[in-house]
Structure formats: structure tokens, C-alpha cells
């Protein structure tokens, strides 16, 4: 009782929340599951992968779900972000840096050195981590695993089980619950199981929700050839791909904003909203970051259009060069720089340092396209509730896209921003019920532009 506190903050001065027994057990299970995979990987093992894979997945699943459940179960429903700036993992501490380095290293190996994951040839077979996933791959696709199968499986696993944790955290908020169920569905069924099943029927791998230009290889020669060689199904996929970009996306975005894709359907968004949730506060809110964001994301949009135009030019004319541009070289450059380095290595590897939406905010050409539609032709906005904002800044803090929501809300202005993915967290964390995501066409320009909180009574 003799501790003499220097700070008079009512909030905890140090991390006092100890792990509960359940959390210790579940963390141990989760770690054991992970450790089994790491041992199998680094030991370069090949024997009895089933004996390692299923227990490790089970331990990981139960451990993650149980931990997430226990973390929020005994708490009164409400916003639970206590202590995010005190924990090393969520405040760019040493743990965050370590995780960032590990994730980045994993992505580098995945994209450019899959042999270190244990990728073998048809004759030699896989070893290590990829061998570990052979049984699962055999079950779903009918053949041995590739590095992409392993990545897809782990990715889906993480979205699903950390999705459960997220749902439990926001169980009182139906928007968050429905949105997360949608993300889990699209990742598990549409992005992971369906393409694998297609492969088992010797049809081309296809993720129906991965729309060009996010799916930058859609118009590549090998992909079009593959589709054209697979009969009616291939034609359907080609048709669907063009339709979803040209018709579906503008229509859905007109009615609901880009959120229908970015925080309800997309896999990159899915990972950001589940695994990335503890890091959302790390996004940069400065005007400078916003400026860089606009230059960068729109440059990449131009890049993907040019690159695709070049590739199609080559396809139809047979000319490899357009002026001095070699279509093969340009598309390889795009694949390396944007497709792999940006979306994977930086996009996920930097979660613990720059927040969960680095790729979506600075890099994704689909987000840029959706953003242009949202800004110019959409009913979606975040409504500000009159003059109720108290400038606490929770909305800005937890905006994963780095939008300074507060600066609009405190002026009573509705928010129409091309980068908003409509995750709804600003509205959830607002302590005064100031923000509401909604769709309505009339008066949107007036409400978004005028300063409406004037004189408390907004008149």
C-alpha cells in the first residue's frame, strides 16, 4: 500500500492483466501446435505427416478459439481495446519487431525460395512444411501440396479462428459479427475449398472473388490460354472475371460503398480484419501519409492498367514490344514488385509496425478502383450525428486506413473518403454514438461538404 504513484491516471500504469489459467493452457496448446509444424519444417522431415499435421492443426484450432473465447468471455460486452499502447506486441515494441521480421522472412521464403519450405519436384516429393500439408492437399485436391496450398491453408486457418476471436470480441455488435462471418465464408469456401476442388476435377484454379486488377494475372497469356483450354467452364470464368470488374463492382459499390468488397469479401481484407485487428491503431494518420497514399495507390492503378494493356497488345498483335516497352518484362516487374513484394512481404509482414491495411491503403489497385467509385458514384457515407462529437479521437485511432475521422466528426461533417473500407470500427468505438455507416443517395454532397456542427444546434 505504500506505492507512491507519480501519475494520477486512473488507467493502469503497467500491464497488470495476468493470463488466466485457461489462457495459459490454450496458449500452450497453440504453441505446441505451432512448434510441431516448425519441428517438421526445420527438421526437413518426410515421415508420417498425418501424425504431425492433424494434431498440430487441432491444437492450433482449439488453442486459438479457446484463448479468444476466454479473453472476452468474462468481460461485460463493450469496446475492449484496453492496454493496446502498453503491450509490446501492439505498440511497436520488441515483440512486434520480432514478429514483423519473422513474418517478412516467411513471405520472402514463400515467394522466392520455396525450396526452403520443403518444395520438391514430382520425382523427389516434398519435405518439411510442404510435406506436412500433403495429407490435407491429397484429401482436397487429390495431389501433393505446393507452397501455395500450404499458404492458402494457413491463411484460411488464421482467418477462420482469429475470426472467431474477433466475433467474440464484438459479439454485441451485429454489423461486426455478420461482416466477419461473411469474410470467414468467402475465405474458407470461395477462396480455399472451391478452387482446390476445381483442381481435383482438373479444372483451372480459380478464386471467383479475386477480381482483376487485384488478380493482376487474369489477362496474362498463360491464364487466358488455360481458361480457353478448359471448355465452357473456362469461358464462364473469363466472362465472370470481366463482368465482376465492369458491372458487379460498380453496381455494388454504388449501393453499399467499397465495403461490400474490402471488409466483407476480400481475402486481404479478411486477414487484416481478423489477424490484423490488434494492430489497427498503428496506421499513420498524418496528412503526409494520406498524400503518399494517394500518389502511390493511383500510380499502381495506372501501372496495372498499362501492364495489362501491354500484355493484351502482345496477345492480339504478336508484338512483344510496344515502343520501348516489353510486355513480358513489364508484367514480370509488376508481379515481383506489386504482386509479391508489396502485397505479401510488406502488406502482411509489416502488420505489427504499420498496421493491418498497408497493402489495402497504399498498394491495392482494386481498392484504388473501388475508392474512385466510392468517392464519385456511391450512396455510402459515414453519417456524423449533429454536434455530438467530443473530439476524443477513438475513431481516428482505430481507423486501420489512417483516416482522421475525428477531423470530420468534430465539424459535424459526414465522411466520404475513397479509402474507407467500411469496417465500422469507428462507429463501434465512438463513446457518444456519433458515427453511423449508411447508404442514401440524396443530399450526400451537402452533408459531406458543409460545416454542420455550427453553433451546437447546426443551423
Amino acid at each position, binding site marked *: *500500500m*505504500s*506505492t*507512491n*504513484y507519480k501519475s*494520477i491516471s*486512473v488507467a493502469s500504469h503497467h500491464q497488470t492483466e495476468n493470463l488466466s489459467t485457461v489462457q495459459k493452457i490454450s496458449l500452450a496448446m497453440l504453441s505446441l501446435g505451432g512448434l510441431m509444424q516448425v519441428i517438421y519444417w526445420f527438421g526437413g522431415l518426410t515421415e508420417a505427416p498425418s501424425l504431425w499435421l492433424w494434431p498440430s492443426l487441432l491444437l492450433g484450432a482449439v488453442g486459438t478459439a479457446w484463448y479468444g473465447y476466454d479473453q472476452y468471455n468474462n468481460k*461485460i*460486452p*463493450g*469496446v475492449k481495446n484496453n492496454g493496446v499502447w502498453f503491450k509490446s506486441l501492439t505498440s511497436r515494441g520488441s515483440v512486434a519487431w520480432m514478429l514483423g521480421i519473422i513474418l517478412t522472412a516467411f513471405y520472402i521464403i514463400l515467394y522466392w525460395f520455396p525450396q526452403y519450405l520443403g518444395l520438391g519436384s514430382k520425382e523427389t516429393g516434398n519435405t518439411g512444411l510442404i510435406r506436412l500439408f500433403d495429407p490435407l492437399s491429397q484429401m482436397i485436391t487429390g495431389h501433393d501440396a505446393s507452397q501455395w496450398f500450404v499458404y492458402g491453408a494457413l491463411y484460411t486457418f488464421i482467418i477462420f479462428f482469429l475470426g472467431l476471436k474477433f466475433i467474440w470480441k464484438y459479439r454485441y*455488435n*451485429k*454489423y461486426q459479427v*455478420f461482416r466477419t462471418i461473411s469474410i470467414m465464408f468467402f475465405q474458407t469456401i470461395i477462396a480455399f475449398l472451391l478452387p482446390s476442388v476445381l483442381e481435383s476435377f482438373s479444372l483451372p484454379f480459380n478464386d471467383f472473388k479475386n477480381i482483376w486488377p487485384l488478380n493482376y494475372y487474369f489477362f496474362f497469356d498463360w491464364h487466358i490460354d488455360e481458361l480457353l483450354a478448359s471448355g465452357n467452364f473456362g469461358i464462364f470464368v473469363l466472362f465472370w472475371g470481366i463482368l465482376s470488374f465492369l458491372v458487379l463492382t460498380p453496381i455494388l459499390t454504388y449501393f453499399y460503398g467499397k465495403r461490400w468488397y474490402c471488409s466483407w469479401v476480400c481475402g486481404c481484407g479478411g486477414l487484416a480484419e481478423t489477424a490484423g485487428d490488434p494492430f489497427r491503431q498503428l496506421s499513420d494518420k498524418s496528412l503526409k501519409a494520406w498524400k503518399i497514399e494517394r500518389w502511390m495507390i493511383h500510380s499502381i492503378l495506372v501501372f496495372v492498367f498499362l501492364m495489362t494493356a501491354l500484355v493484351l497488345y502482345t496477345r492480339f498483335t504478336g508484338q512483344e514490344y510496344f515502343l520501348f516497352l516489353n510486355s513480358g518484362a513489364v508484367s514480370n516487374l509488376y508481379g515481383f514488385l506489386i504482386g509479391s513484394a508489396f502485397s505479401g512481404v510488406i502488406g502482411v509482414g509489416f502488420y505489427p509496425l504499420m498496421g493491418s491495411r498497408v497493402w489495402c491503403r497504399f498498394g491495392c489497385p482494386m481498392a484504388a478502383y473501388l475508392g474512385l467509385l466510392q468517392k464519385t458514384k456511391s450512396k455510402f457515407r459515414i*453519417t456524423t*450525428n*449533429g*454536434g*455530438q462529437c*467530443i473530439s476524443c479521437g477513438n475513431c481516428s485511432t482505430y481507423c486501420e486506413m489512417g483516416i482522421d475521422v475525428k477531423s470530420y466528426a468534430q465539424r459535424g461533417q459526414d465522411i466520404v473518403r475513397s479509402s474507407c473500407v467500411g469496417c*465500422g470500427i469507428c*462507429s*463501434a468505438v465512438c*463513446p*457518444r*454514438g456519433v458515427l*453511423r*455507416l*449508411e*447508404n*442514401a*443517395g*440524396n*443530399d450526400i454532397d451537402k452533408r459531406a461538404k458543409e460545416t454542420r*456542427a*455550427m*453553433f*451546437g*444546434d*447546426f*443551423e
Partner: protein
Amino acid sequence: MLPAEEAQMVSEHILKHGIDLRLESEISEILDDGNGSVSGVVTKSGEHIKCNFVGLTVGVSPNIQFLKESGIEINRGILVDEFLRTNIPDVFAIGDCAEIRKPAVGRKPIEAVWYTGRTMGQFVAHTVCGKPTAYDPGLWFNSAKFFDIEYQVYGEILATRPEQTQTFYWQHPELEKSIRIDFKKDTKQVIGFNLMGIRFRQEVCHHWIKNGTTINEVMQNLALANFDPEFYEEYEEQIVNTYNKEYGEQVKHQGKRKLSLVNRLLSKI
């Protein structure tokens, strides 16, 4: 001050959060631990409570003693006129240190509330920028959050209700959610909304109050005020049923709460 039902809800919520809330008890003594720090308190009933931190919150009063010799006229706060000017030219005072000489009807001379401070700031900015504008606090509104319960108030909701005011109160049977609408006994015009755990649109509530809308009409269109996030459960049907039962009315709730309908309402004068 909250009406009794809402106060009860908040008290129970505070207890749920593990805070040992003692109503109707008072501190009589703060004990020293011998090193200049606090070691505990003694209540009026003689109970000794150990602690190492004491926070006293006995209301807010302006800390303006340093202005005593300045020539600026002060009372409990810094006295200002309707343009928020002190008695000295080009010196203004706003916020919870300012005391309005002639406050608007129903308003206090000093309001230690965020919204009042901000609103005054907007007015004084107009005035100092060469567009003298008299301070008009507008309709009263406020908000707070008691741990996880959000609270909003629009218009006049008094803890001790005057004779000529009637009240309608609905509380969720299990969750910490309630709405209260006060209205005039004779004309049935609504004068105030009190929300716990449910979000209402400020503009719609203000529109109804300003236009002297009757409680029946408000009930009929209640969903227009709903500001809860999408997919949240809507309680309007239940609320209107409760109202009909209590007041022997036959109001039919007209569902739907699309923003375009809200905008249509607000564009009417």
C-alpha cells in the same frame, strides 16, 4: 442529474464493473501513512477503507482567483455579455470559466460542459473575426458514457419532473438499454429525449422538439431517430406497444428508418 430509473441502471452497471459504489455515505477523514501519502479514509459511519489514492469530485468551479487584481469583472466565473465579452475591450471568456450575465431561459450562467465550451468557441471566433454574433446556446444536448453504457440527452429531461410534464419510459427487459421521452401534459408536445444504450439522431430529436411535435406523432415515426449501427436489433415496435398500453393510445408504428426518409423529414420546416 439522471432520472431515478436511469440512475439505478448506471449504479448497477458500475457495481458490475467491480467498483464498490457506496451511495449515501460521506468521507469524514483522510488518513496519512506517515510519509506524506494517503493510507486510507474514514467514512461518516466510522468505517475505515484502505487506499493509496483519493480523488475528490465535488463538482466544478472556475479557478479564476488569479484574475482578482486584473480589472476583469468576476463573480463565480468570468462575467461576460451575450457576445462573450468581458468588461475589458478585446478580452473574451468562453468555456467553463465564463459566467453569462443573462443566460437563456432554462440555462445556467456557468455550464461546465464540453459542448457549451465548443459552441462558445464557434461564436467567439465569428465575433473576433469581425462578424459579431451573439451567443445562442441552442437546444440543450449532452452525452456521456458510463463504462459501457452510452448516454445521450436531447432537450429538457429533469430528474425531478415539473407538474406539467409527463414522461414515457421504456427499458429493455434484460439489456442495459432504455429510452425516455418527456412531453407536456396539456399539448402532448415532446420536450426531451433521454437515451441509455441506444443511439438517436440529434437532428431528428431537435426537429421534433423545435416543431412542437406531439408524442403520438413521434411514436409513429420513432424509427426515424434510430442511429444504432446497421443490423442492430430495433426496439421501436416494442416501445410503441408499451406506450399504447400505458397511455391507452392506438399509435401504429410506421417501421423503416432509411436515411432518405430522415432527410425528407429534416427538409420540412
